[in-house]
């Protein structure tokens, strides 16, 4: 990144001024991540129906946030970097959720008006 040397915005990104994280913090985060790993394995054994996946994803999201915030140093980073992180997540959500919306609502139309050759029922929608 030596090319960065000319950059005016460089001082703001300030990699050389990044505060040195405390070892205690890092180890604490590590411990938390390990605990969460056990937690998620344990919770998956409990029958929660639809909520199993929700809990699993929430725990994963928490772990990922910890890694990003502390290990990847987002807590020291610029607004721009944070914006990029959020953008990655939002775009992932756009991809997954909009695609998912198609599949999860496919049945809606047809159950409302079941196909039938039957002439006596229902109102024709013209």
């Amino acid at each position, binding site marked *: 990144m030596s090319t960065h040397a000319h950059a005016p915005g460089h001082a703001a990104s300030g990699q050389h001024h990044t505060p040195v994280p405390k070892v205690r913090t890092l180890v604490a985060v590590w411990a938390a991540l390990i605990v969460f790993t056990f937690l998620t394995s344990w919770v998956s054994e409990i029958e929660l129906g639809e909520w199993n996946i929700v809990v699993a994803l929430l725990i994963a999201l928490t772990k990922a946030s910890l890694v990003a915030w502390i290990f990847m140093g987002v807590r020291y980073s610029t607004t721009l970097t944070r914006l990029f992180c959020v953008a990655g997540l939002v775009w992932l959500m756009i991809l997954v959720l909009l695609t998912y919306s198609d599949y999860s609502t496919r049945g809606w139309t047809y159950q409302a*008006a079941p*196909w039938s050759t039957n002439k*006596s*029922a*229902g109102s024709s929608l*013209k």
Partner: protein
Amino acid sequence: MLDLALNLPLHSALNVPLILADLPLFPPAASAQAGPIDELYWFEVIVSAIMTVLIFAAVAFFAWKYRRRPGVRAVQIEGSTGLELTWSILPFLVMLVMFWWGAKLYYAAQNPPLDAAEVFVTGKQWMWKIQYADGTREINTLHVALNQPVKLTMASEDVIHSFSIPAFRVRHDVVPGTYDSLWFTPTKVGRYHIFCTEYCGNQHAQMGGWVEVLDERAYANWASGGGGEGSLSEQGQKLFAQNGCSTCHLLDQQGRCPILRGLYNKPVQLRDGSTVMANDAYLRESILDANAKIVSGFDADVMPNFKGQLSEENVIQLIAYIKSLSPATPATQQGSQQPAVVVAPRARAAGAAAQPQQ
């Protein structure tokens, strides 16, 4: 090739006067939905034309009026938030009208009237196979009666096709692995193109044909000609016996497999706890890949896999038969809204050698 392009004297590309003589500019509107869609289309054309003319005129006028002249300098203008908002919001309002209008027509197109005559269409590279309820079959030709709503239930044997009748303004993709449908009400006697509009391989352009809209008398006349093999459900019944389905799917008592009488369009409780509607798509899947969804109380691997054994047309015949086992009465229509759960005792004699052979 034959139906589409030939049968007519070969036009030479250079024979321009002759070509221009029958230059079509707008398609015939031969269905009930063609009119409303054309109205929206013309609305869009008019809006587009107005906008195009406005912008062309403004560009031409400004370019001429403010052309570079000695001693005249441009006036620097920052912009105008008011103006920006105006030309963002006003067009957007017009677009909202288009959106609402288009969505409304689309909604209607998704919901066939219940008195629509059902015709089955199977697409394969590169032809459309048509089956009628009375058992008549045709290839690349669809006969429909004037003013009678028709619902097409469509399957594909290979790749994605798209069934399109421009004169009716209808079109729907035919995706393998499921059923797709569309419906229309023909309103003009005549002969109109059927096209495949999803690229499906080499002879994609040949995958077309004609829809013949016949008046009442002509339709009755045509209908009386066909059906030598019995109605669609009778053909299905034959297949049902031939393939040994009837050994396990007993009509009135619990066999090794679920009872099919009264099943159609009812919710079915599956082994994994979920519920599905016994519609065409479910029946098709269960016939071809019985293990895909196991009914609660039954075992997997009892029914053989019919994928590769039965064509999509056979499957349609079987479904027609299964449908005929659920005669429509006012009670069942009410009932179709209720969760009638099909429950059966666990099948006995799982290892019995009664499996039908194909």
